[in-house]
């Protein structure tokens, strides 16, 4: 019981740190390091239930505190069941006449005993049905979307009721909205075309920022440090850039004006590659920054349990605290960078040149 309290205290104490460790250090320090590594790895990944903390009870059996989320599988028809059936991969879930088991974050179709076979490279050979589950990340996405919707609709409504002046929390967000318009959209895209991109840029900025900040809370969420999320965002930027691009944009890629003809042939593949590299860099930058932040932060917290003395542990705590504060800035900065670069790419797409040979 005392152990649990210690951990709960710690949980609230490190209010920016994102998780507590599964259990008190027992056994050799190598085991502990392995466990911390596994825990960090586990935290970075998405899960099928919303787990707040887990610990091993005194009778040696694992206790998870959190809530189950719905699992949705496409396995020749939708299979929908609660993730509590999977028991964090400890048991086999039976749905109708099918059996599923969770292994390292992936749900596989198994037999009644839950056998999973592996090939030489330790990849499971079982069939993994398409997984549309409302995972922890999807749940967080929905929550963030709801929060944003009510927040900004509230701002829009407060204008109507309060004579064009924002009220309440909107007073904080209104200057940010204006900043995105005046300092990001207009300078990068231009007065003439910026309006069509405003909805996307505003949503993008707040979405990434809120999710980054949520990732620093003790809820243990890592949404923007997931490659599927950053890929989706970069893909939308890519699509919008190319769909709204004007003739000049394509001309500059395939037949660069103002350079010798032979150079135009050489430049075309490079420019074309750039079209894909730009959103790709967006995807990797956000993913890498947020993941790295989480890894560093959790490693520092993990160090406390490795040192296990007042000096080392307080040092790691101090470091973890300092890094947390930096991470709050990184959360804002990465949202800003993603938005600015998206705006910049849109600006390239709609740029109009006065004269072809003027370069």
């Amino acid at each position, binding site marked *: 019981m005392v152990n649990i309290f210690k951990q709960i205290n710690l949980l609230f104490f490190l209010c920016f740190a994102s998780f507590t460790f599964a259990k008190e250090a027992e056994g050799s320090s190598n085991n502990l390091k392995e466990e911390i590594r596994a825990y960090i790895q586990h935290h970075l*990944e*998405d899960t099928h239930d919303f787990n707040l903390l887990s610990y091993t009870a005194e009778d040696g059996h694992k206790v998870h505190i959190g809530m189950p989320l719905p699992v*949705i599988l496409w396995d020749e028809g939708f299979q929908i069941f609660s993730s509590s059936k999977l028991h964090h991969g400890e048991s086999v879930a039976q749905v109708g006449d099918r059996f599923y088991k969770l292994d390292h974050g992936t749900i596989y179709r198994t037999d009644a005993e839950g056998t999973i076979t592996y090939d030489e490279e330790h990849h499971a050979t079982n069939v993994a049905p*398409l*997984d*549309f*589950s*409302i*995972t922890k*990340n*999807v749940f967080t*996405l*929905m929550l963030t*979307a709801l929060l*944003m*919707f009510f927040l*900004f*609709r509230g*701002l*829009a409504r407060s*204008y*109507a009721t309060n004579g*064009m002046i924002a009220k309440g929390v909107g007073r904080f967000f*209104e200057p940010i*909205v*204006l900043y995105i*318009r005046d300092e990001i959209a207009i300078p990068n895209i231009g007065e003439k075309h910026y*309006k069509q991109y*405003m*909805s*996307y840029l*505003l*949503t993008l900025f707040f*979405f990434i920022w809120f999710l980054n900040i949520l990732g620093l809370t003790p809820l243990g969420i890592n949404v923007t440090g*997931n*490659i*599927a*999320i950053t*890929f*989706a*965002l970069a*893909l*939308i930027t890519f699509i919008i850039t190319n769909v709204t691009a004007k003739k000049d944009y394509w001309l500059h890629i395939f037949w660069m004006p103002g350079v010798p003809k032979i150079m135009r042939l050489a430049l075309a593949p490079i420019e074309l590659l750039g079209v894909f590299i730009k959103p790709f860099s967006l995807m990797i930058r956000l993913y890498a920054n947020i993941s790295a932040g989480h890894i560093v932060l959790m490693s520092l917290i993990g160090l406390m349990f490795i040192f296990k003395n007042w000096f080392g542990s307080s040092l790691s705590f101090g470091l973890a605290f300092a890094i947390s504060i930096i991470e709050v800035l990184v959360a804002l900065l990465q949202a800003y960078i993603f938005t600015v670069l998206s705006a910049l790419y849109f600006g390239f797409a709609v740029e109009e040149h006065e004269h072809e040979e003027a370069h």
Partner: protein
Amino acid sequence: MEKLISEFSFGLFFWQLFIFVGLVLLLKKYAWKPILDTVNARETSIKEALGAAADARKEMASLQEDNQRILKEARAEREALLKEARTTGAQLVEQAKADAQKEADRILTQAQAAIQTEKAAAIEDLKRQVAGFSLDIAEKVLMSELEDRNKQTALVEKLLKDVNLK
């Protein structure tokens, strides 16, 4: 890289696209458009208000100038009126003085004429009385003296010589 690809969750990707695109569309309709419209309207109204204030200030300045000008004119007019009044007053006094002088002169002349007349009358009267007195005296003297005829004549002659009327 291989790890990244193996970690890629299609389900999460699907939900992210679905939720995010939905959020962009919903927010566009219910939040961003009204917010940006309001902010634009507010900025326009602020600009207009500032312009109107500047206009009002300009108008105010021109009004003040007008007032100043009117005041100046009024003051000038007052000066002119005062000056005129002062001149008229002076003229009136002059006129009165001249009239008075003339009247005085006339009265004086009349008085002199009257005095002259009176004087002539008085002299006439005096002459008559003196003649009367002289006759009386002469009578009396003659009474007393004219016992002697010669004497009488001598005396008359002597007396007549002495009397010299002017």
